[in-house]
């Protein structure tokens, strides 16, 4: 076994950490408070290569392995969940489907801008009445001559309505399979297409500096060329995208845990009560010891899942485990971190308050914790 990262992976961690601390940390509090997506910060993240990380250089990407991508997301999440969300969704959900399933023309048309971080792409799966039950989606696409006509709506779509958003991948019902189940096809719909409206969603509890949108499709006419890959491949494309996406959500849980833990440890060493730093009290020290232990376990689990994916082995079970474990871990760590900070932990200035809120999404997005348990239980033969 080799637990060493490569020199490049180490350097990626170092540089992304430096970037996150110097560029994101100083503005995270304000962006969260104002519930503002920052196009400027997103472009800066693009300049250092945080988009298209696992896309090959031939397709205008950065040509990194999956583990490098996950380390980068982890390091951003260590400082701020919102920016990590922009990057993770941008890569896994925006760029991923086009890169893995798109035609050469589609890749050439969209990837250069998306991989440079100059544009963002959304992933339209969830609908107002279809969350965990993705099969229940009602958005339809009907063929009319050489065109397809899209009707329906999508909700909670990250990077769907920011000033950098260029378009969205939409899953729609395009008929019935011989089995009687609906047939799904994914379509690439650009912003500005008549009948397509993207509306930013506000008053979020978490990820307040990340862009979330509601999408409406009203007789949107698009050409056959807008089908992502093949007609009827939609469901498979979505599932496969979510398998990879789970690793990036896990990275957000791991990075968020690390950030909250470090803040709590630092505070506990400095805060003096009853004549000594509170980290000397076992009630506090044991909480921190538990955090350190679980973060170590989480990192090993997530990196192993990435290793499996990088070695083209099946990784779906481990991805679900890592997503579930890292997400829920951040809940425990952020809770301890706020508790250790006492009254100060409830104040925005101390940042752990934001980590506490940002965590909750991780239990819900890209497959709830309950769905992850279903996936794992199926893999172990229940």
């Amino acid at each position, binding site marked *: 076994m080799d637990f060493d990262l490569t020199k490049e992976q180490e350097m990626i961690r170092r540089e992304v950490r430096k970037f996150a601390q110097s560029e994101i940390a100083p503005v995270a509090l304000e962006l969260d408070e104002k519930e503002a997506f920052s196009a400027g910060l997103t472009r800066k993240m693009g300049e250092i*290569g945080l988009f298209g*990380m696992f896309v090959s250089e031939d397709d205008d990407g950065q040509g990194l392995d999956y583990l490098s991508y996950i380390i980068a997301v982890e390091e951003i999440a260590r400082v701020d969940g919102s920016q990590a969300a922009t990057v993770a969704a941008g890569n896994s959900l925006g760029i991923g489907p086009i890169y893995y399933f798109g035609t050469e023309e589609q890749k050439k048309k969209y990837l250069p801008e998306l991989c440079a971080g100059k544009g963002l792409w959304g992933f339209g799966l969830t609908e107002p009445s279809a969350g965990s039950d993705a099969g229940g989606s009602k958005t339809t696409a009907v063929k009319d001559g050489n065109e397809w006509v899209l009707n329906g709506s999508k909700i909670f779509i990250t990077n769907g309505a920011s000033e950098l958003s260029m378009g969205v991948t939409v899953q729609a019902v395009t008929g019935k399979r011989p089995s009687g189940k609906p047939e799904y096809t994914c379509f690439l719909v650009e912003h500005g297409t008549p009948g397509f409206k993207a509306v930013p969603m506000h008053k979020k509890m978490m990820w307040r500096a990340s862009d979330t949108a509601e999408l409406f499709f009203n007789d949107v006419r698009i050409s056959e060329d807008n089908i992502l890959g093949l007609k009827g491949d939609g469901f498979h494309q979505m599932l496969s995208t979510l398998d990879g996406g789970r690793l990036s959500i896990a990275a957000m849980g791991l990075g968020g845990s690390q950030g909250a833990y470090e803040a709590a440890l630092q505070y506990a060493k400095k805060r003096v009560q009853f004549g000594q730093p509170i980290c000397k009290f076992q009630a506090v020290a044991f909480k921190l010891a538990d955090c350190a232990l679980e973060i170590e376990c989480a990192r090993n689990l997530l990196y192993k899942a990435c290793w499996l994916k990088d070695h083209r082995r099946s990784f779906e079970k481990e991805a679900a485990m890592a997503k579930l474990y890292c997400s829920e871990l951040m809940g425990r760590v952020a809770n301890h971190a706020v508790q250790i900070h006492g009254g100060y932990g409830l104040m925005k200035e101390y940042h752990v308050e934001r980590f506490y809120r940002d965590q909750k999404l991780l239990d819900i997005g890209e497959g709830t914790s309950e769905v992850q348990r279903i996936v794992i239980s199926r893999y172990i033969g229940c």
Partner: protein
Amino acid sequence: MLKQVPATESLIGIAEDGVSVKTDGIKWVINPYDEFAVEEALRIKEAHGGSVTIISVGSEKTAEAIRTALAMGADKGILINDPASAGYDGLKTARSLAAVLKEAPFDLIIAGQRAVDDDNYQVAPATAEFLDIPHISMVIKQEITDTKIRCHRTIDGGTAIIETQLPALITTQRGLNEPRYASLPGIMKAKKKPIDVKNVADIGLDSEHMGEPLTKIVSMKTPPDRKGGIMIQGDSAQAKAAELVRILHEEAKVL
């Protein structure tokens, strides 16, 4: 020219030998003033063409710092790594850098004004001296036209503008630029860029040439712990001022 130094946020402790610092658990970085030098070199390359070579004296670990500069966009690296070089003083370091630079064609050498670990200030000017080229220190701005470089150099209370013929050596001052981050694709490209590792014999300097170091670290001490301050008591501003004068005169004995 680049030196790898402990990160400024590292906790520095003195090693058991009493003349060096503990290296366990220290995070190493490019000396911040040298980072300005790398950035300026890359900007000059972007504006005028040419190539950027990073040169350093250090250990195997120093390759990491060179690699980071390559990831920022430099073209190649040269590392002088020899057990003998570990104990070099500023002058010997400069002598070995000059020996390599004599063999490598260059138009401009950029270095940090000093390394933040030993604050020696010697290496860059001494290198220029050994190469017999002009040197301008503490540069906050430079312009190159044809074969000349014109630099803004900080001096007490102002800026001096100095011009010289190339090839030359300049050293950096805070304010010269804002160093870029090594990008992720830059990191991958750096993997394929060459770092030429040389020992002292390779550069034609045997210990005889180098002689004894002219300076030697005799011992290292941590600064004394700061004592707590004194709050001056008194009923009025006048009384407090009188007490302050008394303390400065009788206890601190500075008046």
